């Protein structure tokens, strides 16, 4: 009975929340600060022509720098939680599934490279490319072609940290020019592509690691 009244209470509070928030959103006037015009005005000197990429990697580079740091931190925390366990042998899936994965993964890699390149002028970029590469790794693992990861060796550790380190190095290098992450307009495009390439590799490894480090105990 107590449980039932709790459910009713929570559901009615949630409904009231939606009701009042919806009403507030209907009453909402035009935004006090409109950032669309400044974004469009400075797009020419940002080094890319797609506004979202310009916001992510130029105007608000701090966000992206700290984001990759958060991802790395999450992976380190997972490694600490999972502890040491031997990599377990994977079970091979049906041959048809394996053949399909062998066909799909090269295509996924090609599309990931395209997404990375396209990020400068249309929707795309490092995060989408990294997620696609990680999905390819997870697909290979699920059909039994890629074993789950045990304790990361030196190469994998460098790969995991490379994106963050590269981004931080570029940001620190720009301190000599002025402030942190303030690209000179002439070199901005090249620097953003460099950072995005590093981010793609590290993001793919980190996101794949989130799955592959966790999956090793399941079979044990």
């Amino acid at each position, binding site marked *: 009975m107590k449980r039932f009244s709790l459910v009713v209470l929570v559901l009615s509070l949630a409904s009231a929340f*939606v009701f009042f928030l919806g009403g507030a959103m209907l009453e909402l006037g035009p935004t006090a600060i409109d950032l669309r015009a400044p974004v469009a005005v400075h797009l020419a000197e940002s080094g890319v022509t797609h506004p979202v990429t310009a916001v992510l990697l130029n105007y608000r580079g701090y966000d992206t720098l700290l984001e990759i740091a*958060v991802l790395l931190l999450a992976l380190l925390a997972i490694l600490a939680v999972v502890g040491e366990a031997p990599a377990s042998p994977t079970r091979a899936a049906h041959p048809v599934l394996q053949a399909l994965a062998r066909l799909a993964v090269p295509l996924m890699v090609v599309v990931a490279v395209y997404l990375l390149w396209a990020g400068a002028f249309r929707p795309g970029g490092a995060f989408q490319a990294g997620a696609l590469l990680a999905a390819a790794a997870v697909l290979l693992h699920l059909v039994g072609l890629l074993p789950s990861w045990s304790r990361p060796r030196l190469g994998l550790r460098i790969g995991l940290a490379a994106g963050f380190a590269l981004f931080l190095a570029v940001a620190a290098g720009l301190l000599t020019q002025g402030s942190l992450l303030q690209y000179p307009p002439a070199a901005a495009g090249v620097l953003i592509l460099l950072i995005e390439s590093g981010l793609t590799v590290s993001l793919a490894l980190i996101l794949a690691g989130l799955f592959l480090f966790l999956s090793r105990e399941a079979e044990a």
Partner: protein
Amino acid sequence: MSTGFIFALTGAILFAAGLAGVVLIGHLLRRILAFNLMGSGAFLVLVGLAQRQDVVDPVPQAMVLTGIVVAVAATALALALVRKLHALTGQLELPDDVDA
């Protein structure tokens, strides 16, 4: 009523549903799912409200893109903790702290 407002209202509903789930559901896996529902709702509100005049604003979109990646990392960490809890205690629910 613009499309952006419908997105934002859907986001508010998803957020409330997720919030109710986090409070009411004991099973930790489903609680993580409910928490993700809350996050998706917040993202929809951000993106939807920003384009309620049917003009796309790139700043909230970039923020949401960042938020999605962080949410994935947080979810993975939560799952790792749940698995550790399951391995140690065999439970998939937190001990009841009502009487404590």
